Every structure is written in C-alpha cells, then in structure tokens.
C-alpha cells in the first residue's frame, strides 16, 4: 500500500522562491526593527552599561531611571505641551481646510476649478528646503520667530494639498444623488457637508488625522528653524537638547524617544479601524 502511494505521488521539485522571499522579508523586518530595539534597550540601561559598549546586550536588570529622569524633567513637560499646541491645531486646521476644498472641488466645481485643484495638489511636491529661507524671513519680519505660531501655520499650509486631494477623492465617491436628495429635503450646502458627505467620509478624515498628527508630531526641521528658546522647542528638537554637555545621554534620549512616540501610536490605534478601511476603500467593488 505504501509502495503504491509512494509510486503514485508525483515527485515535487524544490521551489526556492518561497524560502528566498521569506528570508528576504525576515532580513527587512530585522533591519526595520533593529533601531527601535536599540532605542528600547538603551532606554532601560544605565549610562555606564552603554558606555561600556553593551548596547545590544540584554541588561542584567531592568533600569527605569532614564524614564524617571525625563518624566520628572520640567523641560520635557514643556516640550510635550508645545508639541500638542502645534500638532492638534495644525492637524485640525489642515483637515478642516482640506475638507472644505475637497468638497468644493468634488461637488461644486466651477470654471477653472480643475486647474486650481492641480495647483494646490502640486504644493505636495515642493521640497521644504526651497521655502525654508523665505518663510524664515517672512516670520522674522512679522515678529513671529521663536513662537509656536509659524510652526502651526507652516504645517497647516503644507497639509492642505494632501488633505484636499484625499478629501476630494473621497467626496467624489459619495453619489451626487445623496447631495441632491438632501437639497430637496431642505438642506443647504453646509448641511449637506455636515450631515451627509462628512459622515460618509469619516475613514478619510481618520486617515488624514493619523497621517497629519504623525507628520507634525515627528517634525524636526520646522521647530528647529523657527524657534530658538528651549521653552519653545517641540519634543523632537527636545530629544536632541537632552544630550549631555560632554557625553551623549543615550539612555535618557532613548527613553524620551519611546515616550515621544506614544501619542502617535495611540492616535493610530484609535483610528486604526477607520484607517485600514480608508486605505482599502474603493479597492473592491461594492
């Protein structure tokens, strides 16, 4: 019986591709995770352990002194507060403006609106370095340097193209008949937007909220350029500021890096359900 079974089985050739792909993906995963693991390991080690070059070894015992140090540091509190004061309004403002622009471009087109839309979207492709000096000079001239306002303005403006693009595409997927039905029921455009189009586009808003919050929270360049004083710095610039005078405080910086990434993680987890839905919406019919 066994012979029959054995002889009946077609000989299967070894296919190297699945194994190759698996190994490649594992290598990539290690490459991506290694820095995070390094930061995590350094955050739970003493400066002495790190100084002795034991960065990639598991610590003998868990050291939480770095976390205690940054959590008790008033400067860190200030960095967090500043980052919230920049990220929340800039995220909200860029999404709100993108929402309005997207609705107009999608549902209320006018002569030349397609060209205007292209001009706005092309803003995504300007490297920030190009506008860095003009903007610095502009904000300096109006006396806003070393305040949080220019960072809010810049991030709002830089967010408008992507927000407008995404919202316009989402609103285009909302059937016109729904808008017309609402208008016949007595709704004005604001009510159509608020009561029909927006509730149907919440996945897009969730995607934008996650992306904008993450980008603005993690931004290093603009706060570095537009602020000078330590009490106006945001968290990413603050991490750099925490380095010691004569040596780099890897442990403290690692701990702050981990804590600094928590808000974006929380925002992502909060919107995750919508985020996945938003990213895949329109991919399949129905």
């Amino acid at each position, binding site marked *: 019986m066994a012979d029959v079974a054995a002889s009946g089985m077609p000989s299967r050739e070894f296919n190297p591709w699945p194994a190759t792909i698996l190994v490649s993906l594992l290598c990539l995963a290690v490459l991506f995770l290694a820095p995070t693991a390094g930061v995590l390991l350094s955050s739970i080690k003493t400066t002495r352990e790190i100084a002795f070059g034991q960065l990639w070894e598991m610590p003998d015992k868990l050291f939480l002194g770095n976390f205690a140090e940054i959590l008790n540091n008033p400067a860190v509190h200030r960095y967090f507060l500043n980052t919230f004061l920049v990220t929340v309004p800039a995220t909200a403002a860029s999404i709100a403006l993108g929402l309005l622009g997207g609705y107009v471009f999608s549902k209320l087109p006018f002569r030349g609106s397609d060209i205007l839309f292209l001009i706005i979207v092309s803003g995504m492709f300007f490297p920030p370095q190009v506008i860095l000096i003009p903007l610095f000079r502009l904000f300096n001239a109006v006396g806003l340097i070393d305040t949080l306002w220019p960072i809010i303005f810049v991030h709002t403006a830089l967010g408008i193209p992507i927000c407008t693009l995404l919202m316009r595409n989402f609103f285009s997927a909302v*059937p016109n*008949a*729904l808008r*017309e*039905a*609402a*208008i*016949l*029921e*007595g*709704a004005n455009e604001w*009510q159509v937007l608020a*009561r*029909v189009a927006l*509730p*149907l586009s919440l996945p897009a808003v969730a995607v934008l909220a996650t992306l904008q919050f993450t980008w603005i929270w993690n931004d290093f360049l603009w706060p570095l350029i537009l602020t000078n004083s330590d009490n106006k710095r945001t968290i990413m610039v603050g991490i750099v500021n925490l380095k010691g005078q004569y040596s780099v405080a890897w442990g403290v910086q690692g701990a702050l890096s981990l804590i600094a990434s928590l808000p974006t993680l929380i925002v992502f987890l909060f919107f995750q359900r919508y985020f996945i839905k938003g990213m895949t919406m329109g991919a399949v019919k129905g």
Partner: protein
Amino acid sequence: MAKLKLEKVTKNFGKVEVIKGVDLVAEHGEFVVFVGPSGCGKSTMLRLITGLESVTSGQILIDGQDLTHAKPSDRGVAMVFQSYALFPHLNVADNIGFGLRLAKLPKADIERRVAEVARILRVEELLDRKPRQLSGGQRQRVAIGRSIIRDPKVFLFDEPLSNLDAALRVIMRLEIARLHSRLGATMIYVTHDQTEAMTLANRIVVFNAGMIEQVGSPMQLYDRPANKFVAGFIGSPAMNFLTAMQDQPDGVGSLSVSGGTVAIGRSVNTPPSERITLGVRPEHVAIVSSEAADLIAKVEIVEELGAESLVYFQAAGSNQQVTMRTSSGVQPKPGDQVSLRFDRERIHLFGSDGRSLAK
C-alpha cells in the same frame, strides 16, 4: 394635490439644447408618465421641475405660482431617485425623517409622522435598520416614505423601479398605483419601461430629442399615435413598419410592399411618388389562406410565452421583418412559408416625414 404647468421650458448645456420649448399641464392628482429613449431629455425635464437644474428659458408654475427660480426645497416637490439615494449612515427612521429634522420640527412630531409613514408603507419593523440591511423593494419603500412625509404638492419619480428584478417591479408598480389612489397626489413619473407607463399613467408624455412628440392617455397613444416615432415607441413588441408605395396615382386603393400588396381601400393624402410607411401592430397580423394574403413571408423564429406566442417573419423577397402576436394554438414552424393579412381597421400610415396620415 397641485396643478403643474410648464410653459415653453428650454434647457441648454453649453451650446447643446437638450429641452426645446416644452409646454405641458399636469392636472390636480394626475399621474403623468414621461417616456422616451435614453438621452431624450425626460430625466432632465424632471430635474428642471425639482430645481436641481436651472431653466434656460420658460416658466414652471405650481398651482399658478411661478417657481422657475425657486430653491428646490421651496417648490413643494419631492423626488424618488433611481438609486433611491438613501443616506447609508442613517437608519430607516432617520432617513424618512431627514427633512423634518432639518426643518427643526419637535422630536415627538417627527416620531409620530415617521411612524405613520412607516405604517402606510409597511416598513414599521425596519425603522432601526440601515439601508444596506434592506432588500431592493424595502429600500424603494423607504425612499418613497422620505418623499411622502413632507406632504409635497408634486411627487417626482425618476425611473424608480429600474434597479429591481422583474417580479419585484410588478409588485412595486402596484404599490405605487395604490399610493397614488390613496394620496391622490399629482405625480410625474419617468420611465423607459412601456409596461410601467401604460399601467400607471393617466396620461403619457412621449419625449424625443428634447421635445414632446405626443401627450395622451395610454390607449390614445397606442391606438392613435401622432407619428411613426410614437407608434414605434409605444407597444411591445414594437409596431411593424413596412415601406410602401402607392400603386395608383390617385392615391386610392392599394399599397405595394416588399413581398405583397395591401389593399387599404381608402385614399392616402400624399403625393403618389411619396414613399410612405405602413404600420401594423403584431396583434393585428394574422395567418390566412393564400387568396386573402397581403404578404407572403417565411417564419424565422417562434417564441412561446405561455398565454401567447410571438412569431417573427421575414417578408418574401426582402429583408423586412414582421412580428405577429397570436394566442391561438395553431402555430407555424420555423421555415414555413405563410400568407399574412393585416387588420384593415388597424393599419396606420405614416408620411415620409413620419407624421401620421389620418384615416
């Protein structure tokens, strides 16, 4: 109930004139059906009445009040969309009560009226469901519910049954007819389905290329079409058309068609040289003995539909098609050569420009 009057209404999209001076009156409580081929302007006309599209020239009056430039919500019209246009994020109760909530009516009032409409349309047990949890027929009822709750003067239906399967379409057609007799409201209904038009309408308006070809009761249009377009559009299967020439110069007597001669026994008020069209409905064609024949034709296909059969012929010596509707048990077989005769009282004649030549 309301009287809807359209006066010389035109609509241009850029340089294209899609509605070309439409005049029409829909009386109080009348059920008027707009029919016509795709792109003829019937849906555009409906949108002009709602105010979703602006009129280029002309007037729209409801109960004598000029509402040509009024906001859609101020016209006292409600529309049921082809796609139902139910708000997917709202449940049935909120969909039906959407307009009342916008009007900021007291909550108790809204609930009472939603319950009343739900009872009329038999969707009471569905009030908490979202549109995606409803069948096609239920969605249609909810869409109708949303339109009747505001007690509009004129109801507009834009091909409301076209997304339903054949069986459900028949049921919903009856429901709309019942609703009309119950509410007694003025209704304008757009469809390309002739059965819907014939069964629902008090009057049918046939549109073609942005103009009205004919307005009349279903049987008027069926029996006395004003022109070849209406004759061909109303009725299913369509009327048979045969190109004909007058045999005698005085225009009296007979017409020669491909495959035979038809003695019509009356004068034709056209120049003898004019090429005319003979029209006869499939139920007015019969198989006869060869002596009484108008036309010799070969049977191509026989479709048995149960209560009746449709027989498709090809006229001898030409490629002209003739369709016959018969309920008799005796049926020819494909390939048979048969003699056909047309009911003299039911023959229609059309001039070269398509106009009906009076009997």
